[in-house]
């Protein structure tokens, strides 16, 4: 079990008393800010080269880098190595860059983009020079964008990438964004200010991070999270020596970048896992006979918090000792203290990444025009908003070619949006840990495992069910196509399903949709259930072969559509078993 470290205050100014904790006392925040602003004004026209000494601990003003054409409003710099650095600054609405190579500063040059105003800059070197820009477009749309000044990794050397939208606000919405700050704290984290000048105005800090496994160029950020910090200039972020740092004029905070880990394996009395196509839940019963879990406020057990991660790794005792699978990951939803006829128990409840998707609600309207983004890219975006990474184990052609007009309505859940996207394609989504993996469940998928020969089947039920529908009509923009399961029609007459999608502007695209709908139904044609000893590597949507002579099955191919895991010890009937629900391949 682990969770990200909490931020701890290194020095903060108490709002009411003006006194600082954990550091030397200073004047009021306003006075401090005024002195900084006065100093900045003095430097506006002459940007000075900054050289570091003594491992960067002492900085000296040493020389002129460039003379700006006007007042410099925002600036940010990033240091690479061996004297390479990049300074970006804005004069009016134009961003300039000046690069230092081999210890020598080059000439400043304007970027290749155009904004109507700039209200903040941040820069960090991490393979490329990664930059965040706040401002507004000529249309009045306010935004926060990321952009890369290439260092030869994701972007060609000394070229600008396109501006990539991180968040937007419509012209006239009274919302604007300011003062971004960027640092790699385990993964990229970005802090900025959202300012609303309408009724109940606010100026609040927000933070976000790149989704797991995503690079800066993917621009896949978690939905920004509000922070309990106000002010026009937000937070300055930095990372180093295993700590992430945040500072404002009146406070400094740090958080360890290594998460505390609590091993619970020895205390587990019972464990139950339910895994379904769009849901995964964990329930773990722990011994609490000595009251060890009664106080979670400190010590090692402080890691048990709502939102902490639980890595559940079942395994076996083998000839070479205990071995465990990497297992699945859940996030703690809550817990119970139980008095069961004198037995003291502590029960943890967790849910998987689907719950993260369910609990992400759109803060605003998200809209993509037709042709703007593929279903694949839209899925990556939505999962990223919930803090989940995204990749494909296999993918249909449709998911990477269909680019529908799409919107996510305000307050709609990520799970709902993902469901609507998956309904457009034959692919399914496998959530494992903090990633969502696309799987195209084709009928020709290779067999992953066998049950009934070396891996015993304790119980089995093998059913045949009719599908919900065996005839599909898809209505697109001025067209209609049909698809049939003729065997099903012959058996039980036709059962019709209609789909309407004006995004479908060709018969080929509509036919793909019809095929996908029937494909999903085909997998429901079998309804089997087997009880087996635990297979630690079993995953949803795997194809398995089932051999059970009592039901006349020999290497019958099935697809795992759901599974449950049960572990019980210290009971009259101990158990270590899995129940698999199997459908047709």
């Amino acid at each position, binding site marked *: 079990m682990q969770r990200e470290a909490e931020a701890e205050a290194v020095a903060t100014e108490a709002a009411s008393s003006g006194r600082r904790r954990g550091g030397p006392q200073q004047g009021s925040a306003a006075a401090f800010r005024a002195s900084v602003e006065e100093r900045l004004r003095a430097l506006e026209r002459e940007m000075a080269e900054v050289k570091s000494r003594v491992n960067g601990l002492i900085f000296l003003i040493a020389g002129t880098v460039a003379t700006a054409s006007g007042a410099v409003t925002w600036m940010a710099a990033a240091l690479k190595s061996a004297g390479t650095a990049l300074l970006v600054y804005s004069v009016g609405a134009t961003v300039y860059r000046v690069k230092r190579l081999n210890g020598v500063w080059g000439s400043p040059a304007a970027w290749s983009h155009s904004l109507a105003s700039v209200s903040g800059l941040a820069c960090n070197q991490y393979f490329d020079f990664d930059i965040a820009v706040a401002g507004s477009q000529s249309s009045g749309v306010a935004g926060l964008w990321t952009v890369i000044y290439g260092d030869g990794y994701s972007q060609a050397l000394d070229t600008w990438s396109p501006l990539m939208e991180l968040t937007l606000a419509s012209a006239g919405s009274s919302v604007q964004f300011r003062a971004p700050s960027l640092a790699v704290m385990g993964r990229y984290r970005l802090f900025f200010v959202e300012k*609303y000048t309408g009724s109940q105005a606010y100026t609040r800090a927000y933070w976000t991070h790149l989704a797991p496994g995503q690079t800066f160029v993917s621009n896949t950020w978690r939905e920004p999270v509000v922070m309990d910090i106000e002010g026009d200039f937000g937070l300055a972020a930095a990372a180093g020596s295993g700590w992430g740092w945040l500072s404002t004029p009146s406070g400094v905070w740090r958080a360890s970048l290594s998460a505390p880990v609590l091993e619970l394996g020895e205390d587990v009395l019972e464990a139950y896992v339910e895994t379904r196509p769009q849901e995964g839940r964990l329930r773990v019963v722990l011994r609490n006979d000595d009251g060890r879990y009664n106080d979670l406020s400190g010590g090692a057990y402080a890691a048990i918090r709502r939102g902490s991660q639980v890595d559940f790794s079942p395994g076996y005792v083998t000839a070479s000792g205990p071995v465990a699978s990497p297992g699945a990951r859940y996030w703690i939803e809550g817990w119970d203290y139980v008095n069961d006829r004198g037995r003291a128990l502590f029960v943890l409840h967790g849910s998987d990444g689907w719950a993260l998707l369910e609990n992400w609600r759109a803060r605003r309207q998200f*809209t993509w025009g037709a042709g703007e983004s593929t279903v694949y890219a839209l899925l990556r975006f939505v999962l990223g908003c919930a803090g989940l990474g995204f990749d494909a184990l296999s993918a249909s052609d449709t998911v990477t070619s269909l680019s529908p007009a*799409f919107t996510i309505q305000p307050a709609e859940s990520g799970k709902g949006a993902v469901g609507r996207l998956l309904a457009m394609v034959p692919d399914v989504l496998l959530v494992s840990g903090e990633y969502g993996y696309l799987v195209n469940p084709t009928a020709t998928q290779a067999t992953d495992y066998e049950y009934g020969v070396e891996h015993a089947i304790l119980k089995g039920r093998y059913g045949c069910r009719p599908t919900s529908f065996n005839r599909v009509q898809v209505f697109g923009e001025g067209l209609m196509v049909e698809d049939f399961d003729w065997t099903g029609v012959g058996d039980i007459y036709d059962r019709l399903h209609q789909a309407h999608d004006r995004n479908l502007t060709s018969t080929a695209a509509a036919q793909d949709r019809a095929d996908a709908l029937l494909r999903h139904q085909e997998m429901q044609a079998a309804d089997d259930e087997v009880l087996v000893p635990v297979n630690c590597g079993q995953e949803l949507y795997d194809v398995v072969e089932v051999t059970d002579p009592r039901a006349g099955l020999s290497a019958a191919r099935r697809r795992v559509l759901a599974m449950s895991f049960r572990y019980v010890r210290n009971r009259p009937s101990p158990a270590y078993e899995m129940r698999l629900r199997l459908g047709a391949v």
Partner: protein
Amino acid sequence: MNLRQGILKSFDAGSYTATVQVAGSLAVWLAGVPVNRGIPQTEMVAGRRCALVFFDDANPGDAVLVAVYT
């Protein structure tokens, strides 16, 4: 099919489409929403409340502004 409430932000009489702040979206508005041609353009006044029907909740182009009211 879903019915949603909004606030009219602007109206294009040429294309008979509107830009609408769908309820719940503080910062971002939905542009290009087709408008019921039975509504006189003189009634399409920015700031008025409106009702939107989404035939496909996922497709912003498959919607219509059916009513505007104060």
